[in-house]
């Protein structure tokens, strides 16, 4: 039986944290592989710490409490024609701002705009001893002190409990358009991606659906779009399908929110670069694992079948020297594959959480 705690104020969260030996924070629980507590660990539910505290549309920055839902934030931004360019997944499922940072998840648009790490400006968090610590700031540029805000990205609740976050945002583009192109196969698709890498196209998103389908997304001024699409098609030298309007937006929302992942499969994120794709494909193809590559094949999203043990994927990724993380499902440990950081990671963890209140990273 795990005890649940749901503070509404920072002081309550501090007290709750200090009152328990093993704690794991949880936002809304959209990434249960990360937020399900190991045995003997209590869940600190931060979804009560909500609310946008400061949002100045002219400054293009906001500060909100960590349990605020991404949906609420996106709505407030949209009213002013702004958005979160790192495009966090699972918004409709109720994902929180703190959960998005701790899971370190960015969506397809991170290809051009950058990920969570490139938009986070500052954080207030509780360390493992329940001390309230502030790092970074609320302005778009800041080099004062160690960059603990970035460290919180991907920390999976294992380095601190975030209570407040500051971000920068961007103005929403006027128009969007997508081209999907079917290549002759994986090699052809990767060759085309290689050519696109150095072309001055400002692609917003570049996804690969193996073996050979590329998804290319453009954004910007509506007037400029037809000419840009034409130029893009010229470079591709392969015929593609154009998508615009409501249908186009819905398509990418489905991609971002993993509509393509079967109910009983676990969502896994793997970091890589395009040149590693063939090796990973060779391993996954025989296993019939559904997958998709985002951010110009800098991320692989896997739908790991429910019946396959997480350990199998762990070994598979280790054999390739790749790092991955389970977002959903119930793996024994969410981090799989070869993770870096070594002694540096251990020492930083020992400073932030000296008595080991949070689970291991």
């Amino acid at each position: 039986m795990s005890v649940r705690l749901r503070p509404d104020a920072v002081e309550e969260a501090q007290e709750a944290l200090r009152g328990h030996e093993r704690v794991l924070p949880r936002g809304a629980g959209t990434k249960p592989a990360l937020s399900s507590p190991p045995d003997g660990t209590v869940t600190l539910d931060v979804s009560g710490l909500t609310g946008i505290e400061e949002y100045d549309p002219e400054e293009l920055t906001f500060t909100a409490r960590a349990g605020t839902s991404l949906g609420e934030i996106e709505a407030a931004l949209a009213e002013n024609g702004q958005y979160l360019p790192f495009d966090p997944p699972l918004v409709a499922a109720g994902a929180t701002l703190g959960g998005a940072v701790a899971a370190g998840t960015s969506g397809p648009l991170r290809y051009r705009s950058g990920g969570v790490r490139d938009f986070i400006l500052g954080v207030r968090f509780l360390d493992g001893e329940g001390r309230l610590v502030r790092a970074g700031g609320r302005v778009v540029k800041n080099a004062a002190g160690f960059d603990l805000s970035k460290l919180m990205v991907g920390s999976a609740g294992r380095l601190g409990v975030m209570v407040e976050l500051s971000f920068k945002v961007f103005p929403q583009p006027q128009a969007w358009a997508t081209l999907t192109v079917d290549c002759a196969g994986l090699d052809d698709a990767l060759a085309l991606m290689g050519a696109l890498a150095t072309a001055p196209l400002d692609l917003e998103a570049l996804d690969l659906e193996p073996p050979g389908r590329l998804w290319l997304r453009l954004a910007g001024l509506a007037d400029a779009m037809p000419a840009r699409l034409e130029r893009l098609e010229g470079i591709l030298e392969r015929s593609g399908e154009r998508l615009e309007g409501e249908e186009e937006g819905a398509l990418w929302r489905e991609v971002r929110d993993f509509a393509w992942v079967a109910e009983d499969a676990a969502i896994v994120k793997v970091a890589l670069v395009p040149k590693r794709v063939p090796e990973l494909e060779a391993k996954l193809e025989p296993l019939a694992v559904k997958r998709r590559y985002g951010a110009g094949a800098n991320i692989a999203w896997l739908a790991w079948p429910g019946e396959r043990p997480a350990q199998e994927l762990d070994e598979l990724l280790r054999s390739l020297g790749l790092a991955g993380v389970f977002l959903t499902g119930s793996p024994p440990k969410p981090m799989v594959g070869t993770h870096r950081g070594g002694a540096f990671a251990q020492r930083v963890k020992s400073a932030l959480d000296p008595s080991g209140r949070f689970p291991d990273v």
Partner: protein
Amino acid sequence: MLLSALGAIYPPARILTSRAELAPYECDALTSFRASPRAVVLAESTDEVVETVRACHRLGVPYVARGSGTSLSGGSLPIEEGIVIALNRLNRILELDPEQRTAVVEPGAINSQVSAAAAPHNLFYAPDPSSQSICSIGGNLAFNAGGAHCLKHGMTSSSVLGAKVVLPDGELVELGGESIEPVGPDWMGLFVGSEGMFGIALEITLRLMPSADRTRTVLSAYESLEAAGNAAAKVVAAGLLPVAMEIMDKLAIEAAEGSVKPGYPEGIEALMIVELEGDHETVDREFEQLLEVLEGAGATEVREPDDDAQRALYWEGRKSAFSAVGWLSPDYIVQDGVVPRTRLGEALAEIGRLSEEHGIRVANVFHAGDGNLHPLILFKGSEEGALERAEELAGEILRMCIRLGGSVTGEHGIAMEKRAFLPEMFGEEDIEMMRRLWRAVDPAQIANRGKMFLPEEELERDEAADPDAAPSSAAVAGTAGPPPGGASSGEARRDTR
């Protein structure tokens, strides 16, 4: 013992110990702080660096890594009882992979050489500090350096993907990787900007960006500096995302015209350079929109450079501004505080007011797009008390930045110069956490000891003397004065020329 340990790693010619040999390493670009180390070693391989760090750790000798020594905050100032590990000979570009858009470089590689190597592939390395033709990637990483074009592409941190690092006890670790999207805690992100206190980056994987096919630049003139600041805020609020947006005031313009002669409009109070970049279909349209915003924001003149040569000249005027100010004044302090962009006009008006009140000239040349001020406080170091008066003004400007909700540094770092201001920006718990981190990563406290944090004994002494004592800033380009916060004789001394 130290010298024999170093002798086992380096041939004699690469261990510098004589006064004359050490002189060039006594300071960085913040020349008011100087210290002579016990030795400087010139590393030519990463193995040598690792062996040196291990020897330092074994013998309890502090060290300072040094790239090109262009830090403006005293980051590469030597420690008297320690050594300097010079990395500038480790300057190779090891790998460049256009299809992955990555480059792997040694830490001493020069910033602009990375872009030069990438250019044939239509790629470039985005962070462009004004010192880009001399500063090193290792120094950029340690300080999370910025530049005019970081407005769109992000600071150094957004362009560093991974690094091989030697920790201060000689242990080797790998942080980050090749992917633009990390998995797990962002250890690399924490290491960037750690001011040399978490160890030495030995091999760095950088993200490259594709060059745009259209760049358009516009120079606009204003009747006051405040008006220019307000125009910058309007460009941001209009939803335009320029790649760079820089402001210069009358004094900075005068300095530029006195040196590189960029041919800016005459007799104006302030100018702003805005640059748009991207595909030509978009840029040409956004440019029209930009011109409308500028005219609506009260620009008295709007000029597009005739050609690339003139555009380059406009930028040279901006990028050489720091050195050009030497033409106006024998000495200056440069600060790099940040304010919210919506409050730029207000901040600039306040700097003007403070300048008048103190009777000290201040030139302004800065990154308006991200609210990163660079007030250059002009004074004559040979005048009795001039430095102290300039420092007082610098301190008031930094406090204004904090008051407006900003930061004391946007890109130059804390190091020596702003140690005393960190406690004004952060609370005790916040700073204690940073210290705890440093102690955990470097238990022997040998990596760049004395930077970022005031020495604890000094903190206590200051508090005992006067709890409200105004901290002293000290970014002075070659000038005289007493040590800030009463640095003891064991510490770096202020140059008394």
